[in-house]
């Protein structure tokens, strides 16, 4: 963990404690998750208790305190996606990947997450992987999609 990265991000916000949420988001963007050491450094740099930093990092669903896989699969469970069968799509991910929500496959390729609406509700069920949106998902498409990411990783 490079603490300089944390310092750089903290400096970007002039070490203002009101920017705590944004700082954590930027760290996660760079590190893919929130490492403990980074949280400790944030507390030191902002001169706030570590408890406050941990409280923030565990309150907001966007954060992960565990390392995540190369492909983070966000299954939308918003209402629009739900009524079109998002639950079944999520089941399929769990079965095919053999992991639960919030977990990462042993090969470090996939992390399974859920999200409450990504604003593409007309196309549900939606799955977002990284910056890529997959529309009108069903069980078959899930398997096909995972295969293609595996292939991409193999290349």
């Amino acid at each position, binding site marked *: 963990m490079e603490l300089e990265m944390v310092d750089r991000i903290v400096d970007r916000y002039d070490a203002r404690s009101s920017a705590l949420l944004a700082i954590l988001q930027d760290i996660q963007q760079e590190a893919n998750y929130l490492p403990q050491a980074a949280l400790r450094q944030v507390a030191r740099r902002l001169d706030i208790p570590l408890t406050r930093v941990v409280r923030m990092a565990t309150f907001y*669903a966007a954060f992960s305190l565990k390392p995540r896989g190369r492909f983070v699969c966000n299954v939308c469970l918003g209402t629009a996606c739900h009524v079109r069968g998002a639950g079944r799509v999520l089941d399929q991910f769990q*079965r095919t990947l053999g992991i639960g929500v919030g977990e990462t496959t042993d090969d470090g390729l996939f992390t399974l997450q859920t999200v*409450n609406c990504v604003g593409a509700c*007309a196309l549900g069920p939606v799955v977002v992987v990284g910056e890529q949106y*997959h529309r009108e998902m069903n069980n078959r498409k899930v398997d096909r999609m995972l295969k293609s990411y595996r292939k991409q990783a193999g290349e």
Partner: protein
Amino acid sequence: MAPFSSTAELHAYQQALVERRDPDRTVIAVCYGTGCKASGATELIDALKKAVQEAGCSDRVSVMPTGCHGFCEGAPLVVVHPRRILYTKVKPRHAADIVNKTALAGEVIEPLLFVDPDTGNKVVHEGELPFYAHQHRLLLGRHSTTNPEEIDDYLANGGYGAWARILDEQIAPEAIIELIKKSGLRGRGGGGFPAGRKWDSCRNAPGEVHYVICNADEGDPGAFMDESVLEGNPHSVIEGMIIGAYAIGFPHSRTEGYVYIRHEYPLARHRLAIALDQAREKGLLGDNILGSGLSFDITVNRGGGAFVCGESTALMASIEGFPGEPRAKHIHTVVSGLYGMPTNLNNVETWANVPVILNMGVQAYRAIGTEHSKGTKIFSLVGKVNNTGLVEVPMGMTLKDIIFQVGGGIRNGKRFKAVQTGGPSGGCIPASLIDLPVDFDRLDEVGSMMGSGGMIVMDETTCMVEVARYFLNFLRSESCGKCSTCREGIARMYDIVEGITRGEGKPGDVELLEELAEVVREASLCALGTTAPNPVLSTIRYFAEEYRAHIEEKRCPAKQCKALITYRIIEDRCTGCTACAKICPTDAITGVKDQVHLIHQEKCIQCGSCYEVCPVDAISVE
């Protein structure tokens, strides 16, 4: 270019823009909202640009990404201006034809036209689409003709004109508040509180700084109105906020603006950031805007994936760098909000309405809508409806008109069962109330609410007990967890409803749910808790029979609750294609090729994969 220092400079610039514009220029507008982007619009835009280059016509034809047009069903959408020829479900491989045939030769490409399923007619022009014909697009109307990343597009269409006119005509801040009060504008974020009254209380609250905030947290899962407004016309929100800052804090106080935007909306955030930069460059934000004496700028704050942060006090705590825990509002946020200062919070759509009202005039605005709900409302019409997308209709339009005329009815010829409005705080309205005019008060009366504008259409295959379970599950994780009634109450209601969907319901469960609903509603600290029972109560009220079937007969009439259904193969339909056996994740289906297959019930986990893949509809659900 130097920033404008007066309205005269702004007007001159706008004049020059208009003169330079060729209204007959061919512009290929590609909808580039999140929906179309998710459907391949990025590749399409690249292909179109390449085709333009290859045809060597970039002097006559341009490709323009725009915000969401609303008709997401046809994503990706292309509109070729000036004739406004509409193409739906366009692929990159169509790019060359669109450029060479339509843009250059004026030819219409038949296969890309939308076919009206009712009449079988092909729709050529955007305006003829039945989906748009019944709408009243005050806010969304310009989306297909505006590049949201170009402030000049907004300016050329008279943008920032409402603000300039206030300065030109020296309309006092108090007079603006009067106008907003008279317009009848009510907050679009949920509660429907009169915007003018809120502005007034905030203006009158003492404080050295007055904060003006835009709530773009859009917590309702399954709704994307605010996202689309920010993606498609961010300057309308900025202009509204500038006018708000002037009306609320000028000249007696300092003003500062914030937009709190949902973190799941990267595109909206990106466009908003561009718009803010461009507004600053032009001197429309910053010190002494247009020489008015008003200094105002806007900071963007990203949410962290928390529904409760849409609540006003939680939102402010979040901006201050704390977890989004609501506090008791015995002192209102207009008096003591962000950092203890007077703070005025309005929703995205509320802000976007402000310049519209001032431009069209209060009288004309009041003519739209119902007695106590004026203007239009944007709904995200999704679920089991044919034309999913964003619709903007006058307040008071009936559910029937919205779902059947604008929305084109229910998908796959199924029967309309209910519509959910108001998100997790709202309720399910049954088919029997289809003639209900949609406005703030009428929705409240039937046990739902306007909310921010989510409208989720459900058909006979949607289980209403399951819907209640869904919202309780959402709310038990989204509650901040501070107060015991909200945290424990919702979790325990979830236990009961979840039990019912698993066939473990007991007599008395419904009554116990109603008792718990009362305490959660009456004794919770914030509106997340006090409205949380609505989805349960409204489904109990209108779909009691469905609860009874689950509890007493262990039967799910909509055939959705996994524990209560069985999949079977209809023998005389099965062709033995083996598709089901191949996809079955638990090897519960056996059979020889070309012979009837069999589902072994003890292995079946009701995942529905076989049902999905069967090419001859030979799988039944009971």
